[in-house]
């Protein structure tokens, strides 16, 4: 038994507003292949009387937090946030999946969920002459704080994106610095894995760090960091932008070309969560040679890659075909040579799917920043 006070929960998450129309489940990318059914979950909460038993509700870990459910709901109910809160109730009771436990502990100890040492966080930038906001660094007074994020700092594949972004910023004369080894996880995935307490701690510490270095304007690599700073952190007057927004505002000048057909995969945390659909496309269209083609499911209808909501660490109730594989199929159908995205998780899941489908000779997965650098 793992009971929660469902009446209070229903109040807190506004679930009485639900009219059981099923739009959440009808659009849920996981409902079709797992036990997750957001509409029915809400109904079970509503009829639970005084207590709702979370025991055995494995499907709660299926949610990718893509926010399709919330974007479709006509009554402003947010099933995704309810799922995250139910996860928190499970975590609070100490029932944590071993994989998740490792990620959370690592975030607590090393400031990243990847079990990597903090001292190596800025190694990717060693040879790049990037100013640092860290103690003794030269970035004091820089206009922008480039918040790199965990995966772009440590993952060898995604490091290429952070390095590309540094070139683009330098090329464009953007005055920026990084936090170096003092940068810590934004906490987005921690929050979505249900560790509300740890998230609160992280957000406070980061808030203080941003304040202490005088950061007024943050640029992120990842839509996940962008979203959590913008929507989950207490309001602190710091302006946060995803890098595609900055590049759309301050267009790059290109001397080369990228002569390829490109399709763009909308990351959920940029698109469905924050309605940033046009800027990444504007950046792509401005690159000489790029021929942009759209997948049928784009923008508001974009299919989640299944990398969010802690799904990088979890298998859930159906370890079958990952959404990223369906997504790569859709990209292949457009005839595109390059599948572009603007999110570290999407980049990794989609690239993995391309390998799985033996499509490496037909489709290359790239971050928009990498494409821009190739054309520079």
């Amino acid at each position, binding site marked *: 038994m793992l009971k929660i006070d469902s009446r209070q929960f229903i109040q807190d998450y506004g679930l009485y507003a639900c009219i059981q*129309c*099923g739009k959440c489940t*009808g659009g849920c990318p996981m*409902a079709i292949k797992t036990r997750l059914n957001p509409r029915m979950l809400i109904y079970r909460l509503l009829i639970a009387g005084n207590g709702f038993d979370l025991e055995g509700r494995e499907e709660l870990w299926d949610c990718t937090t893509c926010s399709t459910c919330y974007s*479709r709901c006509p009554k402003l109910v947010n099933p995704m946030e309810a799922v995250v809160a139910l996860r928190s109730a499970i975590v609070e009771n100490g029932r944590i999946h071993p994989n998740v436990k490792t990620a959370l502990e690592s975030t607590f100890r090393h400031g990243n969920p990847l079990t990597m040492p903090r001292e190596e966080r800025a190694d990717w930038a060693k040879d790049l002459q990037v100013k640092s906001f860290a103690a003794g660094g030269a970035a004091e007074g820089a206009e922008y704080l480039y918040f790199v994020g965990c995966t772009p700092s440590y993952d060898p594949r995604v490091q290429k994106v952070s390095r590309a972004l540094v070139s683009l910023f330098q090329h464009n004369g953007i005055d920026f610095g990084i936090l170096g080894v003092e940068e810590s996880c934004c906490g987005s995935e921690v929050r979505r894995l249900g560790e509300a307490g740890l998230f609160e701690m992280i957000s406070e510490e980061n808030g203080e760090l941003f304040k202490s270095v005088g950061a007024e304007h943050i640029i992120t690599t990842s839509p996940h960091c962008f979203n959590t700073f913008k929507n989950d952190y207490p309001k602190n007057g710091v302006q946060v932008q995803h890098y595609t927004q900055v590049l759309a505002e301050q267009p790059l000048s290109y001397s080369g070309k990228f002569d390829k057909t490109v399709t763009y995969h909308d990351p959920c945390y940029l698109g469905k969560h924050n309605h940033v659909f046009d800027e990444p496309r504007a950046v792509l269209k401005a690159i000489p040679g790029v021929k942009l083609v759209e997948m049928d499911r784009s923008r508001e209808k974009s299919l989640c890659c299944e990398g969010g909501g802690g799904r990088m660490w979890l298998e859930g109730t159906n370890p079958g075909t990952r959404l990223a594989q369906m997504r790569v199929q859709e990209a292949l159908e457009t005839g595109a040579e390059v599948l572009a995205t603007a999110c570290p998780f999407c980049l990794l899941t989609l690239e993995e799917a391309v390998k799985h489908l033996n499509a490496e000779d037909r489709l290359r997965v790239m971050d928009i920043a990498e494409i821009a650098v190739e054309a520079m």
Partner: protein
Amino acid sequence: MIEYASNGHKPAALVIGGGIAGIQAALDIAEAGFKVYLVERSPSIGGRMSQLDKTFPTLDCSSCILTPRMVDVSRHPNIDLLTYSEVAEVSGQAGDFRVRIRKKPRYVDEDKCRGCGLCAQACRLSGRVSGDPGVDFNAGIARRAAIFVPFPQAVPLVYTVDPQACIYLTRGVCGKTFLCKDACDAQAIDFSQTEQYLDVQVGTIVVATGFDIFDAHRRPEMGYGVYPQVITTLEFERLASASGPTAGKIILDGKMPKQIVFIHCVGSRDRALGRWDGEGSNPYCSRVCCMAVAKQAHLAHDRIPGAQITVFYMDVRAFGKGFEEFYDRVRNEGILYRRGNPSEVIRHGDKLLVRAEDTLLGELVEVEADLVVLAVGMQPRRDASGVAEMLHLERSEDGFFLEDHPKLRPVESNVPGVYLAGCCQGPKDIPDTVAHAKAAASAAMILLAGNGQRLFANQEKSSLLA
């Protein structure tokens, strides 16, 4: 007695809007012996009802029951019909409103035009102009010329030059000679026409300005504007109508659809609209869509042999006289009602997939379709705020004009002497609209008949209009 009436003026009413509500109110007031100025901003009266094929639940032909009323309006000795005109200014108070009406130039002499249509055949843009889907009689699915009558039964049956489309009016020159003018034997076309103003005095005003159709682009996941096979219920009416561009054949891109899905509540009961586009939400039920869909499903069943027809719904609101019986009839015809409101429409080869949870099964289903009809809701007119400002009308939270009391004063507005008729006050079907309009007419006539002093003892309130 109303003061100006005793000064020798004939008591008169202004009716704003020439849809079924305005037509009904105007006819009732005129029949009682009062003068009526009926102002309609589009080229013809008739409104939304003229666009419909059949009406639920009786399946009467909409234009067959409406057209005689339109003709009655045009022939009534007590009605001054001012089409292609707008109310520009209103001042005064109950019993003595001063109204300035702007007559827009049609560039066609109403007295000379015989409605023959030779001008439209001759127009360089003949068959090339598609009107604004929210205003156009054929909901944007058919093409016309830059000089047009909205539909063959238009009242008045007089051509109008579309100033947005006409080559001469937009570019200052149209070839060497005006093809339309050359074609017109009646010499009715007159590009020298300008705006004209008419000042009238009336004792009372009936507002019957109607509603706008929800713009389905605002729910992009439904694929409206992306897939040609996704249409609105209004467009379906034009496809099904004998006077429509396909002469009543339900054909899309030359083909008769065989798998048809109807989707309820698009742009109604939706509080989340406007989260990103900054426009309002539509939290209310539009009250007509359930039955409109039932009727259209019946029409599709009737005209497309062997069609598979699925209606996705959250609730079926069949509350009017004969409505539940009609819903029974439609289901018995083999139309499948599935509970669950679709979340999205995606491409599937040449066809579409409607993705929904069948909430009775608790399963996500994908239903193949070659026609998807979105039951779009009603919303306040885009320019309702301008009308409200001009007349000092209050609006309810949903944006429709506010009645003075929700139970006891359903047609009175907050301004004495100004009454509300039809969907400008909130969504209504045709029977309710007619009933509301008749009530507004009766309220207006009480004032005109001379009880003004008793009704408007509260002078403070009645001097709201400066």
